């Protein structure tokens, strides 16, 4: 059973880190934290979807749709409505993709979502009048370009993602989601409206990634298709959630921190583009070495420590009796 403190840990972690970084106001650390927060949101969103058995390789599609929707709609309907448009368009795209891939299982689902992400990039280039083509587009700058406020806003979005993830790990959703993943027929035979639940997870996931993408586009007020629709944004959420620990909220958070830290270390030690190879190799080693992710490793450590205390107490007990 989870205690209150472990449940609150992610919220405290995010709040304290964000406040501390805003207070210290070192540009490098703020940029790093923004990167961690955005990738953490996409990883949480990916994990939420995967709990229903839908292993997506299409996160980049929603990431890009988010930033492009904000950029396209802001001049037409204003900033507030454009943000609402991001939510609506991502929800629609998620519903559509969810319905199209409903009957696909595992690998076929992953390939279909990957295809969706790749075709979105092509679509942007094909309609340059609307999207600016390969030359890119200019979304409204987030928080007037003040990195501290940007971090604050993205931190809030991350908190919302954490709260959503926790809600979906509660008794109302977690067992039903897992049952859909293991055997959808069994879920249906238990009264779960399987299609509606899968689409619901897809919408939550897609909207979160889209909002993260819109924030990302707003960091500098300029994005090109290869920036947001790149396969990188499809693979990264999966890698982070796996590295950190799937089916948890803290896992994707720890995974995002670990991965960004690894990236920075590799960049400064190796440099150039060669660092990406080393960085990729290290991720693979980690995933092979700890299939349950960082969270699994911590649980094992906690179990070991627990056993030691139990053993210690038994020893004391014996000594007392002796």
């Amino acid at each position, binding site marked *: 059973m989870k205690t209150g403190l472990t449940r609150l840990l992610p919220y405290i972690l995010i709040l304290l880190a964000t406040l501390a970084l805003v207070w210290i106001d070192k540009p490098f650390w703020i940029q790093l934290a923004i990167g961690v927060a955005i990738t953490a949101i996409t990883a949480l969103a990916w994990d939420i979807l995967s709990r229903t058995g839908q292993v997506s390789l299409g996160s980049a599609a929603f990431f890009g749709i988010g930033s492009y929707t904000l950029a396209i709609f802001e001049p037409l309907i204003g900033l507030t409505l454009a943000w609402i448009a991001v939510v609506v368009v991502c929800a629609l795209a998620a519903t559509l993709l969810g319905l199209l891939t409903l009957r696909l299982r595992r690998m076929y689902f992953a390939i279909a979502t990957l295809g969706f992400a790749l075709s979105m990039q092509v679509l942007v280039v094909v309609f340059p009048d609307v999207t600016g083509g390969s030359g890119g587009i200019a979304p409204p700058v987030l928080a007037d370009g003040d990195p501290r406020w940007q971090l604050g806003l993205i931190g809030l979005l991350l908190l919302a993602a954490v709260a959503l993830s926790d809600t979906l790990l509660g*008794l*109302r959703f*977690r*067992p*039903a989601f*897992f*049952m859909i*993943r*293991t*055997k959808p*027929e*069994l*879920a*249906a*035979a*238990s*009264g*779960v*409206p*399987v299609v509606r639940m899968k689409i619901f997870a897809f919408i939550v996931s897609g909207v979160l990634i889209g909002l993260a993408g819109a924030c990302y586009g707003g960091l500098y007020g300029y994005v090109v298709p290869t920036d947001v629709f790149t396969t990188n944004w499809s693979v990264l959420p999966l890698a982070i959630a796996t590295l950190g620990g799937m*089916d948890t909220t803290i896992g994707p958070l720890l995974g995002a921190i670990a991965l960004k830290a690894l990236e920075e270390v590799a960049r400064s030690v190796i440099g150039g583009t060669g660092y990406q190879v080393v960085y990729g190799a290290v991720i693979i080693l980690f995933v092979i070495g700890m299939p349950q992710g960082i969270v699994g490793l911590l649980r094992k450590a906690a179990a070991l420590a627990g056993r030691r205390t139990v053993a210690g107490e038994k020893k004391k007990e014996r000594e007392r009796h002796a």
Partner: protein
Amino acid sequence: MPDTASPDITRRSAQPSGGAILAVEDLTVAFGGLKALDGVSLSIAAGEITGLIGPNGSGKSTLVNTVSGQLPVRGGRIRLHGGDVTGRRPDRIVRAGMARTYQIPRVPPTLTVEEVLSVPLLYAGRDRHRLPGLGDAAAIAAFCGLGPLFRRYCGDLSVTDLRRLEIARALACAPDLLLLDEAMAGLSHEDSVEVMGLIRNVHEQGISIVIIEHLMRVITSLCHRVVVLNNGRLLAEGAPATVLADQAVREAYLGKGFAA
């Protein structure tokens, strides 16, 4: 009605239900060109335990999968409580009062017994005042002999306990009619005797039951009535002793082994 049930004299029980909780009328289900069910009509009486038997490939599982909404119907009607449920979604059929178990229970290993039972309790949306002893997850688990395992992970359960859990999960749907798909396959003699006791207890709660079973001693000791399928058609129905003594049934299914 004569004592020997054979195809020509079998009652085609498409009568509008008075005592029937489930009525299947001229049901046809096909996979491509192969008719797994070919114009089957039968009715399941409320308050009874009905045995559904037949050789492998006779259409037993197809019938269960179809009436529970998991296979598309090519022709015919399915009525539950007299209401048409043909072509309804599985979760809707559960809500209408019919639950089923699976022969091979595949539950998420990282869920506890309590969490598995919470799913039908939350989603089946059935009034449970009718089943006072089965009001919540703990009561249902205790009823099915899973009390001590309530907070255990499903990944740690034995095959027998998984079978019990599967029955418990179906019970948590608060059904009027429960379809049990080979609940005893692969169990030891002692375990199957226990599960039979459990099925009797479920029946005493006022739940009508259909069991698919290969073990004849289970059928003869539990069932009020038996329905025999062969090649996707209704071969016979009636009291167990009568049906099992029928020549056509013995030729199609039981063979020499049963007589010995």
